[in-house]
């Protein structure tokens, strides 16, 4: 068969014009279903991002005894800094601690009760891998279960950390299943719509076959159409998702940052993953379009 691009594109374009309603239906179906799938994927990535931001802020507070010498303090600080799991160490002196306490409780009765400075100095540790929090905390104890010299107490919210990790895992699994179900629903819906649009033109296929068109000559314009329907539909869904994630989600995330005091929230606006999601949706749209047309044609092409 000779490939004749002018005929195929011309045929695709003119049938686009003449079967507008069918095209419109197919494209809207692709756009809406893929939008829902994409929206869910973005939300899931967002939730995962928020959870991992929270996780990354899992910190250990090491309170020092009041009588700790500068030498011991420096020794401890250097020791902590040499551990691989640590991403950052901040020293907070007694004065700084008091200042912060005053600031946090401004106008409160409590401040009047305070005499001198009852607050301890401390190290605040931030971890590279939050899962190792317990391991790191245990290093401040000797083998008898007492804190090492100069350390008064170590706090890292044990229960809270464990719960957070298991919640993240559950959310991840459920979200994955929902995305799979949504995706299957989208594929079936798009397939049926495109099948209908092929069915609406079975007379055309019959005539083509009877005047001696080869199967590929019949098939190609339909495959082009299926591709365009999927492609244009998915582009529309990506454009909608782009605006949605740029305006609504980022606004929502900012609100979260403000209310929950989460620093460095992994917002999607500056996340490369979303580009892969967009590209994936467009490729998926085009592929579903071509395959749906191909499968739908199988029934009519055997005249």
């Amino acid at each position, binding site marked *: 068969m000779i490939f004749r691009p002018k005929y195929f594109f011309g045929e695709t374009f003119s049938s686009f014009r*003449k079967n507008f309603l069918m095209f419109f239906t197919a494209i809207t179906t692709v756009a809406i279903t893929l939008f829902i799938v994409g929206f869910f994927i973005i939300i899931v990535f967002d939730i995962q991002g928020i959870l991992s931001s929270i996780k990354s802020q899992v910190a250990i507070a090491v309170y020092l005894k009041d009588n700790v010498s500068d030498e011991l303090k420096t020794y401890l600080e250097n020791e902590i800094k040499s551990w691989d799991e640590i991403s950052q160490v901040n020293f907070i002196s007694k004065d700084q601690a008091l200042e912060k306490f005053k600031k946090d409780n401004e106008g409160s009765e409590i401040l009047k009760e305070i005499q001198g400075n009852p607050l301890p100095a401390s190290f605040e540790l931030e971890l590279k891998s939050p899962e190792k929090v317990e391991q790191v905390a245990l290093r401040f104890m000797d083998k008898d279960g007492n804190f090492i010299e100069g350390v008064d107490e170590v706090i890292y919210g044990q229960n809270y950390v464990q719960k957070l990790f298991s919640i993240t895992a559950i959310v991840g699994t459920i979200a994955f299943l929902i995305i799979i179900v949504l995706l299957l629903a989208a594929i079936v819906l798009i397939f049926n719509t495109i099948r209908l649009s092929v069915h609406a033109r079975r*007379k055309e296929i019959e005539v083509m*076959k009877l005047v001696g068109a080869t199967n590929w000559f019949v098939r190609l314009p339909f495959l082009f159409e299926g591709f365009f329907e999927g492609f244009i539909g998915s582009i529309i869904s990506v454009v909608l998702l782009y605006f949605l994630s740029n305006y609504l989600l980022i606004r929502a995330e900012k609100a979260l940052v403000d209310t929950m005091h989460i620093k460095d929230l992994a917002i999607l606006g500056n996340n490369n993953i979303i580009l892969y999601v967009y590209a994936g949706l467009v490729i998926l749209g085009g592929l579903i379009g071509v395959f749906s047309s191909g499968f739908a044609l199988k029934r009519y092409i055997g005249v």
Partner: protein
Amino acid sequence: MNMIEFKNVTKVYEDGNIALKNVNIVIKKGEFVFLVGPSGSGKSTLIKLLIREIPVTTGSIFVAGRNICNLKASRIPQLRRNIGYVFQDFKLLPNKTIFENIAFALEVIGKPAYAIKVQVPQVLKLVGLANKVNSYPHQLSAGEQQRISIARAFVNRPPILLADEPTGNLDPATSDGIMKLLSRINLIGTTVAMASHDKSIVNSMRRRVIELEEGEIIRDQKRGVYGS
């Protein structure tokens, strides 16, 4: 030269219905043949076998000397390009103009645009509807639509033209016009086979008549009439 030859052809459908029983027909190049008989006598089956829409059960069919029964699927389009096919219900595409409907038949067999531009007006002139190039099928009368359908079947100048009840939906005056057109196409040298129910048309034409009944040929008569 034998254009069409049926040799001991039997067709049994999947549901067990025997449509043709041991049929033998020879149609020479340039002949005009009527296939007559009641509904279900096997006329349509005969035509469908010729264009390989359905396969034979036993026997063989030759078109221009070639056995088409063992044709590979990829060669079927080639066979159909040599056989024009006119339907009772026209099968024009409603969303294409007359020009596009006929051009479509050429485009899908890969004819270049310049050939299409020449051939379509030519065939429209032949069927007497050159002025309807830009009309849509629904704007034409039934007779005109059938002429367009014939134009589409003939635009590629196939050596054989098959017509399945082409006047079945038309009134007598319009039918006469269609028959004149088919005669003219036959005169150019095209072999024409036409299935028909229409007694007056068959009688007035005085052409070869093959009569089928329950899948068997009961009469094959030169210059025949509808009823024996």
